[in-house]
């Protein structure tokens, strides 16, 4: 008799939804993966070779310092029916040790938190559900039936969502990240109105050094874990502000070697204490990030003016960055079509390879991988590389799926593909919002017929969200073409808005579509290239005419695509237009 064991670790939403800074988001995903790995390692220990999901080529991927991200649902085939308690304990123990390290780090810097409350908050954090279903391995359908039963029971068990009242409540202020827990930082650590300016600055510095708390942030034990846990693994990784600034710095370096890098150094030289940088690199070209590096975030007037002069000399950096969320399509159906544990292991191994490959692709594109596990990818990237990153992820996934289908001798109807959603947000907007937007884009991409879609949502501070989407192979080709045109400065950014205005005026009239198309072409012929000198090239004009006359793309849709393409082009010219 064998036992199919599934456990689910959470709360997933909580870790990801309450992020304020990029590190919070990264750490939330990392923590969940760590806990899942702890569960997986314990299962391997009890019964070597038992893991089905995640199934890895080598055991060392499950070790804590390894980059591999484990999904939060772990499936194994065991010889015992009641391993649940032991696995839960292994997961809790891992969390406790992570907290112990964090507490030690705080203590080392002289911080004094409310240890009792903190300990209770940590103990209370984890959700751990499990199901164990017996099956006869000699029965051909044994595993298949057990899997179906276990999925059903797990869903039904999850629906109960049992909880208890917090043991750690008090009248203390609540967490600035989620408002759901009391802060454990003593109130004496915060500056009072009656403190002298020196005393205030000292306290602000200490709040940052001891707790990584900024601007009067109240932090619970869980928040402290997010901010301070495992510093060795995230050595100053780049923030969203850095992402937004990277195209600007690169464009400068392209214009003249080392120009962008020199600018950054000049800015750094204006800063009082490089230690407080909190990892900001390219992001220093933005005034808000520059100001952040000063104690109490208020640079002296001269410094601010010197900063503004330096940056203005070169142009205006585009303050937007991209957040990419990708997810496999039809994975559930594909998994159901596979009937044996070994076939599932083959799929799981391929998914693990994809997770590692995805991380490498994102890094190569100068992005930061927040989460890369199974068929799920979450990363933030600079605007000028996000499109090619998405394309490489899509291709890598397709190649791996082809491999799996051959290995398991698949004869079914389903082909898993990768749908990708991208949100473009301002670097100062709350990360949780950018994330929601990226998930909205992912959902939009999946709305394409037979999925396999790409969707981008641009949220500019000044207007409504702009959505564009389409299928891989058609939509991305067109979008790349548009981006190339902007990069070559073959069209001006204003063209898109004129076409949009045309649509607005004529769409409510009785002018037939051919008439509208003709009018659009006439406008294009009149436009000059970016910079206003050269006539628009014939090749470009022809391409536009073809698109405008194509019934599958609306003029309004095309103008939206142009606006987004302008953002993705990353040239200095378009950056200036964007922020004008």
């Amino acid at each position, binding site marked *: 008799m064998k036992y199919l064991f599934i456990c689910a670790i959470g*709360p997933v*939403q909580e870790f990801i939804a309450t992020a304020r800074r990029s590190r919070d988001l990264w750490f939330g995903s990392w923590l969940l993966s760590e806990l899942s790995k702890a569960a997986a390692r314990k299962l391997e220990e009890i019964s070597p070779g038992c893991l089905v999901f995640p199934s890895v080529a080598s055991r060392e991927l499950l070790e804590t310092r390894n980059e591999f991200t484990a999904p939060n649902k772990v499936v194994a085939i065991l010889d015992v*029916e009641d391993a*649940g308690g032991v696995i*839960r304990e292994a997961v809790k123990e891992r969390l406790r040790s992570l907290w112990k390290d964090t507490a030690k780090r705080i203590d080392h810097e002289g911080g004094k938190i409310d240890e009792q409350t903190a300990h209770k908050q940590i103990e209370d954090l984890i959700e*751990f*559900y*499990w*199901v*164990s*279903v*017996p*099956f006869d391995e000699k029965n051909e359908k044994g595993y298949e*039936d*057990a899997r*179906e*039963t*276990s*999925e*059903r*029971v*797990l*869903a*039904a*068990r999850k*629906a*109960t*969502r*049992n*909880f*208890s*009242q*917090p043991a750690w*409540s*008090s*009248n*203390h*202020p*609540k*967490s*600035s*990240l*989620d*408002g*759901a*827990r*009391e802060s454990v930082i003593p109130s004496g650590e915060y500056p009072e109105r009656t403190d002298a300016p020196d005393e205030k600055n000292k306290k602000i510095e200490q709040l940052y050094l001891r707790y990584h708390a*900024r*601007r*009067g*942030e*109240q932090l619970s034990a869980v928040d402290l874990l997010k901010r301070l846990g495992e510093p060795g693994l995230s050595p100053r990784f780049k923030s969203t502000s850095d992402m937004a600034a990277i195209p600007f710095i690169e464009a400068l370096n392209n214009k003249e070697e080392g120009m962008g890098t020199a600018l950054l150094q000049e800015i750094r030289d204006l800063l009082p204490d490089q230690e407080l940088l909190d990892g900001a690199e390219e992001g220093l070209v933005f*005034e*808000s990030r520059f*100001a952040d590096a000063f104690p109490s975030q208020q640079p002296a007037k001269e410094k601010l003016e010197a900063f503004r002069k330096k940056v203005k000399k070169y142009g205006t950096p585009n303050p937007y960055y991209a957040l990419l969320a990708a997810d496999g399509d039809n994975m*559930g159906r594909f998994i159901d079509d596979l009937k044996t544990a070994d076939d599932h292991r083959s799929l799981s191994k391929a998914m693990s390879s994809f997770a590692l490959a995805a991380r490498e692709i994102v890094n190569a594109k100068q992005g930061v991988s927040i989460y890369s596990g199974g068929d799920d990818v979450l990363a933030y990237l600079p605007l000028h590389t996000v499109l090619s990153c998405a394309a490489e992820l899509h291709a890598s996934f397709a190649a791996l799926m082809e491999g799996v289908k051959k290995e398991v001798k698949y004869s079914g109807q389903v082909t898993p593909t990768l749908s990708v959603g991208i949100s473009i947000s301002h670097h*100062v*907007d*709350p990360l949780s919002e950018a994330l929601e937007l990226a998930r909205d884009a992912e959902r939009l991409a999946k709305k394409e017929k037979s999925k396999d879609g790409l969707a981008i949502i641009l949220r500019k*501070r000044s207007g409504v969200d702009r959505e564009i989407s389409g299928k891989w192979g058609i939509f991305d080709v067109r979008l790349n073409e548009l981006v190339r045109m902007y990069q070559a400065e073959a069209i001006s950014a204003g063209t898109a808005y004129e076409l949009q205005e045309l649509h607005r005026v004529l769409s409510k009239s009785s002018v037939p579509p051919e008439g509208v198309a003709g009018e659009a072409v006439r406008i294009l012929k009149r436009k000059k290239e970016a910079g206003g000198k050269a006539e628009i090239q014939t090749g470009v004009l022809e391409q536009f005419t073809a698109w405008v006359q194509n019934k599958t793309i609306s003029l309004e849709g095309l103008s939206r695509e142009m606006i987004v393409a302008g953002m993705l082009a990353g040239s200095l010219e378009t950056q200036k237009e964007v922020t004008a």
Partner: protein
Amino acid sequence: MSTWIIQPRDPLIFRDGKPFTGDPGGRARSLPFPYPSTLAGAVRRQAGVREGFDFNKPKEIKPEQIKWMKDIAMRGPILAEIDTDGQLKYYFPSPADALLVQEQSGKVIRHRLKPVDPGGSVRTDLENLKPVGPATHVKDKTYSEAPSFWTWEQVKTWLEGTPNHDNMPAGLGFSGPVREQRSHVSIQPNTQTSVEGALFQTSGLEFTRVNSNGSPLVLAVETGIQLREGADFLGGERRVVRWARSNSLLPDCPEGVRNGIVEKKHCRLILATPAHFEGGHLPKHLGEKSGLSVSVQGVTLARYQTISGWDYEFNKPKLTRRLVPAGSVYFLKFEGDPNEEQIKKFIAEVWLQPVSDDEQSSRDGFGLALLGTWDGGLYEMEVKP
């Protein structure tokens, strides 16, 4: 007891516990629906003002006056719409025992969840309760546009029980007040221009609507204390609302439901407002008032909600507590074979009455309950291991 309606003029903000500071990029985001304590507070303050308490000098309000205010009970808030004839059309939070999924074809199916018997050899970490799920293994994805509020008519039919699944009915409900977002700036007093980078956002609930019949959404509460009609503030940022009396009464327990519960000696309890139980998800004192012994067989909840709030009495933050969200469903069994009288007494004491464990939470309006039928049966797992 009379019903009062609160008609918001501005979008209302009901804050979660997150401190809203001068940190640029900060947001004050509203909860999707107010907690009962917010409305109870508004009722009590109105009552206090009528009595002549001066809320501008809180330290002068005496302890017995505070107690008098805290003793005022309120039932609600219930979301409603004013009908063309001036009557209230009620909406209730969608019940958690209804699962809406969307098939590949686009069709939306509604599944009825019930306690499941997983079979003797299947183990889970859940103790003392049965898992709750649909009749068959459902693989389709949850319908992304499932309404969060159902009309009373639809809820009534759902309470009366039956089909294990059906097509999602037309006009099931909607998702309540829409979120509206505003960006604010911080103005420097000497230059009257905005501070660079100091952008804040507030996100409020829009109750006024420009829809088919344009009838505004209101919040209905029931209380015995005399209130004043007219303009008032409610929630964060001093947004304006209008109080008015209403002739409508909250709905009664449908006859079909009453008979069904008496016959089967089992029932479902569905929360109309969030509840506070000392044990977390399980109530401690259910049925005690009517002398019945009630056992919970299974439960289906959405994730717990966290509430703290501000204690005006002691001028500090309140303790964090967890609430069972509205819409959660409890499958109850009456132990000891009670008779028809006793069961009817239970129904009268529970129907749209607060069932929270502690008295103050009940007076605040936490835990208003609806009742539905349940025959006590479990779904069997089709595939036996």
